[in-house]
């Protein structure tokens, strides 16, 4: 297959088009602007629609409309804009509308900065908006995965009628890497008979997140929960590197995992018995697999570009059965292989 050199943000855009997404609604914010510009150029070429919305709120609500009409739709932003989109995401989750949205994370809180960070892990994995819901969260660590996980995101979003999020960061979004643009290869999904439009010969279709009266909302939320349970059962994705004989497992995702991979390879060369566990789905979180790690390793070191967010999920999975340490950078600080190895040596 032909290899091309692409920026991470652009790879997301091309993967969305390969997935059949013809509706993209954006709003400028660094560090995701390459994606907006890419869609502005590419969408007209493929007969699609690009709109620069008046705000992130408007953009996610345009997604709500396009998705209600049965089409694959996408929006993207970074932390401050994702905060604004949370209202719409909650409505999409409540109304069971599929969509893919991308967070190319920057440093927060507030306006923060535009450097790479993983500070939106809590917001991403806990739903983010109001109400009792979950979104599928996919965390790419390469330009190749920016494309592959975007395609997976569209498939899972449609399969479960649920928003799916690509949780990237400024590094993976802006770096150039060789990658293969292979099209999506997923089983066929049933037609979207729930979508509005083309009403001839059927009763009204209604897209709503309102369930007033009696126990209708409780029953709806329990239906959602059953859906989330099956996502948790069937859609967990992770990757392991040199874990079989490891004394210490590093757990990291996205760019932190990229750094940790380097640390593992360098550490092994020095005879350190370390391995890497990389969650690819942050929700559903690979809790069971991390729980099994405990039987093999002496302790776990979590590396993340946030001050102890994913480490909470690791500790929940481990449930006190081994020590879980944290090496965290924040506000745009990026861990280096040397720093990670220094922590590992201290723990051995």
């Amino acid at each position: 297959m032909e290899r091309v050199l692409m920026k991470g943000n652009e790879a997301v855009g091309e993967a969305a088009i390969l997935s059949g997404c013809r509706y993209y609604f954006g709003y400028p914010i660094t560090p995701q602007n390459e994606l907006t510009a890419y869609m502005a150029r590419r969408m007209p070429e493929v007969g699609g629609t690009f709109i620069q919305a008046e705000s992130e709120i408007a953009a996610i609500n345009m997604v709500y409309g396009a998705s209600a009409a049965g089409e694959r739709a996408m929006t993207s932003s970074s932390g401050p804009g994702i905060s604004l989109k949370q209202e719409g995401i909650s409505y999409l989750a409540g109304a069971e509308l599929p969509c893919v949205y991308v967070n190319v994370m920057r440093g927060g809180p507030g306006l923060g900065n535009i450097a790479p960070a993983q500070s939106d892990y809590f917001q991403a994995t806990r739903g983010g908006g109001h109400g009792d819901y979950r979104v599928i969260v996919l965390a790419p660590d390469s330009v190749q995965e920016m494309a592959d996980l975007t395609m997976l995101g569209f498939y899972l979003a449609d399969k479960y009628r649920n928003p799916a999020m690509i949780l990237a960061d400024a590094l993976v979004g802006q770096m150039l890497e060789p990658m293969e643009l292979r099209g999506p290869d997923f089983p066929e999904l049933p037609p979207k008979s729930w979508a509005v439009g083309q009403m001839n010969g059927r009763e009204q279709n209604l897209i709503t997140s309102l369930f007033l009266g009696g126990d209708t909302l409780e029953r709806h939320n329990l239906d959602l929960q059953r859906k989330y349970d099956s996502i948790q059962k069937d859609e967990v994705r992770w990757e392991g590197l040199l874990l079989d004989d490891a004394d210490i497992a590093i757990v990291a995702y996205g760019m932190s995992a990229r750094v940790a991979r380097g640390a593992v390879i360098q550490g092994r060369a020095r005879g350190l018995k370390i391995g890497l566990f990389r969650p690819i789905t942050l929700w559903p979180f690979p809790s069971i697999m991390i729980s099994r790690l405990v039987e093999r390793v002496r302790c776990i070191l979590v590396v993340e570009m946030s001050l102890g967010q994913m480490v909470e999920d690791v500790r929940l999975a481990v449930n006190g059965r081994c020590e879980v340490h944290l090496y965290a950078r924040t506000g745009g600080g990026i861990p280096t292989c040397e720093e990670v190895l220094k922590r590992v040596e201290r723990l051995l």
Partner: protein
Amino acid sequence: MGRVFRRPESFRDVRTEYCPGCGHGIIQRVIAEVVDEMGIRTRTIGLSPVGCAVYLDQYFNFDMVQPAHGRTPAVATGLKRVLPDHIIIGYEGDGGLTAIGIAEVIHAANRGENITMIFVNNAVYGMTGGQMAPTTLIGQKTTTTPMGRDSKRDGYPIRLCELLATVDGTAYLARTTVSSPRNVRKTKKAIRKAIEVQMEGLGFSMVEVLSPCPTNWGLTPVEAMKWIEEEMMTYFPLAELKSPNGRKP
């Protein structure tokens, strides 16, 4: 003898939830009649608002979408871009369109989106118990202006039609009311025209309807109709503010 008055096919045989004397029922019936008469029911998509009319999707007998408060013009944009041959009718109140969603309506209008907004202006937030809206008149008492709206503290009533008339993407703008049978007929005519403008792809269309809220105004239904004509219409004059040139009405 033939039957001359019946429930429109576009309005389901259900009981509405509105207070006695409310204007929502009249406006919604008028929309349903227009949709029937134009023969567009199966390619019409309505958007129900947040507020007293949130059950609109239970009344209208065509496909419906329920968006977040004020976001209707953005959701309608997404729908229309996917389904350009469908008729998209948004329905919102003064809170949704002139407060929380004013950015969405200005920009949908500015893009010239081929959608029709029905703007129900009753000068209060109805569902939440009668708080001040941006359209509340000076001196009008609400639960959040117990001594009356004071322009020094609360600003002035917003005239959305006049504001949108300055936006180039708007093709049709009218303000009507349902205070009398004659005005109801005018409202129906304006809504039909707005939908025709949408179907011809001429741009954004909106009909603002001054509508009674006797419950939150503390008036009887008859007094409420009179209040529209004597108070509201002096600040919000009825007019066809914008209509495509060279088109027959």
